[in-house]
């Protein structure tokens, strides 16, 4: 169950405008701001600030200075929790106003907001409450805001207890007084420590980690929980049981599980408030709780049925958690051998299709090359043509020049003859010979 209050990540305060981005919880440069505080901006004062803090309207500039200094100071190192005293030592102003601004910012999650800690995951029930409250008086009182995230609040009188049925939470006082809804009884409640939380989603990494730890340490759940960072031993056991294992992996565990159900079922039934919850062995605790709910015989039958069906599921999905990525080839081979022909033919046709595709691609390429070649040749021939033409032209020009010069000579001769003709008539005769 992931947290249902979405978080908005915000860039560190270099820019005046914040752009919401998808959630990445492990990035050191991103600051997380709860969604009910998304109105926050460095340069302006929002309505809810004006409503809650008198200073913001009386002296907006100074208020902004206080607020921005506090937020900057927190975001400088967002992993720690800043105290009011830290802040008032560095801000110039009267401590009363600073305290009010600090409390306001803390209540709205703009400072000291650490959503990755397990304390901040609310239950679905609380979310519905908080959402409907939020809808009705949206940004009104910051006292509702803590109910949204960090603490587990009793639905009746706002304190902490837990019941798994209907996800209702009651405080110790209400429980004793019998303040629960009609239809629910004493036995249906389970005592939960305030530090315990609802199940977070197990990431693949964590699951792998868990399995490694189990193969290393076996039943020593304390060490397993140490290896799997952030999970208590109970959570590890719970997760381990959820995983689709067959008989192959941990036969001793299964046998223990069954026998413990039988053994503890009787004893736990007697004690309605499940004191076995505190048992050191977390398997015992889980088993005790579940069997208390269901009854011994039912629990036994259920366990056996679950185991058999789980082993079937395991075989059919062919998942083997023991294998590390390097060993998958082996597994694949063995898997393929008893898998049958269906997958082979599929593989084969896939390959053939691929090959054909490639062939066609190469054909197309070849054709394109040929086309290009032809074009190139075309251009070359044209070029040669032009060159020849050029040469011809040159020749003709030269001939033209020659005839021009001959012509000129002829003209000259004619002129001489003309000038010399009237003086000597014989010249003509001589010439005409």
């Amino acid at each position, binding site marked *: 169950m992931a947290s249902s209050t979405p978080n908005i990540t915000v860039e560190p305060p270099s820019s005046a405008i914040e752009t919401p981005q998808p959630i990445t919880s492990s990035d050191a440069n991103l600051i997380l701001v709860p969604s009910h505080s998304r109105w926050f901006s460095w340069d302006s004062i929002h309505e809810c600030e004006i409503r809650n803090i008198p200073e913001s309207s009386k002296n907006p500039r*100074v208020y902004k*200075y206080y607020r921005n200094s506090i937020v900057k100071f927190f975001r400088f190192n967002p992993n720690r929790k800043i*105290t*009011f*005293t*830290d802040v*008032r*030592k*560095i*801000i*110039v*102003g*009267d*401590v*009363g*106003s600073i*305290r009010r601004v600090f409390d306001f910012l803390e209540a709205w999650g703009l400072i000291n907001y650490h959503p990755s800690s397990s304390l901040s995951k609310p239950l679905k029930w609380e979310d519905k409450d908080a959402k409907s409250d939020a809808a009705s008086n949206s940004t009104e009182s910051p006292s509702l805001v803590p109910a949204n995230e960090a603490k587990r609040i009793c639905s009746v009188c706002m304190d902490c207890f837990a019941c798994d049925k209907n996800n209702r939470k009651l405080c110790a006082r209400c429980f004793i007084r019998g303040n629960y809804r009609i239809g629910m009884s004493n036995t249906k409640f389970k005592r939960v420590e305030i530090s315990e939380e609802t199940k977070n989603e197990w990431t693949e990494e964590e699951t792998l980690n868990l399995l490694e730890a189990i193969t290393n340490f076996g039943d020593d759940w304390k060490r397993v929980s140490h290896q799997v960072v952030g999970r208590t031993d109970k959570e590890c056991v719970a997760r381990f049981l959820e995983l689709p294992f067959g008989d192959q992996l941990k036969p001793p565990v299964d046998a223990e599980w069954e026998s413990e159900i039988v053994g503890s079922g009787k004893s736990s039934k007697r004690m309605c408030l499940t004191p076995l919850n505190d048992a050191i062995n977390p398997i015992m605790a889980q088993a005790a709780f579940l069997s208390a709910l269901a009854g011994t015989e039912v629990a036994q039958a259920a366990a056996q049925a679950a185991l058999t069906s789980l082993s079937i599921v395991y075989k059919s999905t062919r998942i083997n958690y023991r294998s590390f990525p390097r060993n998958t080839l082996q597994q694949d081979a063995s898997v393929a051998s008893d898998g049958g022909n269906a997958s082979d033919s599929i593989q084969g046709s896939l390959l053939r299709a691929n090959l054909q595709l490639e062939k066609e691609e190469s054909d197309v390429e070849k054709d394109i090359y040929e086309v290009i070649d032809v074009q190139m040749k075309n251009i070359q021939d044209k070029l040669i043509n032009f060159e020849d033409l050029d040469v011809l032209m040159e020749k003709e020009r030269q001939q033209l020049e020659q005839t021009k010069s001959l012509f000129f000579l002829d003209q000259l001769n004619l002129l001489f003859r003309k000038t010399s003709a009237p003086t000597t008539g014989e010249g003509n005769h001589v010439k005409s010979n």
Partner: protein
Amino acid sequence: MKTPVSAFYRNPVKFRMPTSENLVPIRLDIEIDGHRYKDAFTWNPSDPDSEVVVFAKRTVRDLKLPPPFVTQIAQSIQSQLAEFRSYDGQDMYAGEKIVPIKLDLRVNHTLVKDQFLWDLNNFDSDPEEFARTFCRDMGIEDPEVGPAIAFAIREQLYEIVVQSVVSARESRLSKKGRRGADFFPVSKGGAVAVDLVKLFGIKSSVVRKRKEWDVYEPIVDLLSNEEVDILEAKEERNFR
């Protein structure tokens, strides 16, 4: 045109801090079982009294002090507030009062020495704003210096103002019949009112004489660890 000096005198004003916000400087120095807690901050006297206990508890929790500190801190704050409030309603003479304010403080590794004039009649003055601007202009990186400067200014202003109330009371007792406007009280202690006429009469300009520039220039020093240790030892000795 030379304006007569008497025109600057005003009728007595009701007691208040001569700043835009009527805030009180609170100083704490408590020792219990070998734990010593020293602090100085500014308080708004119009905050409800419940705020005092809240603040004391918060401080003890944040600084992880032993629990007996809560009552001691609350008591100390209450008594200083009560003293402040006791002056309420009394008259103080405004007069023409430009007083010198001196800064001589050390916060962690930063040493600040400065001297400047402050107009007591300017009820819009703001020591906090002055401190912020000072730190910004002088490029002071340690964020704890600002509040210390604002506190030092306020403390001195508070002293001066209290003096003026006291002397006004005395003068009223001793010199009945005299009109307040004619009386020019000389405050005892460090802050001697500067004679404006002498400084800013027709002949002289508003700009300070060059030889006085060094006196009025702010000095900000960064100390090394050894120097800090030496100074701390000296302060301890003075305290004891």
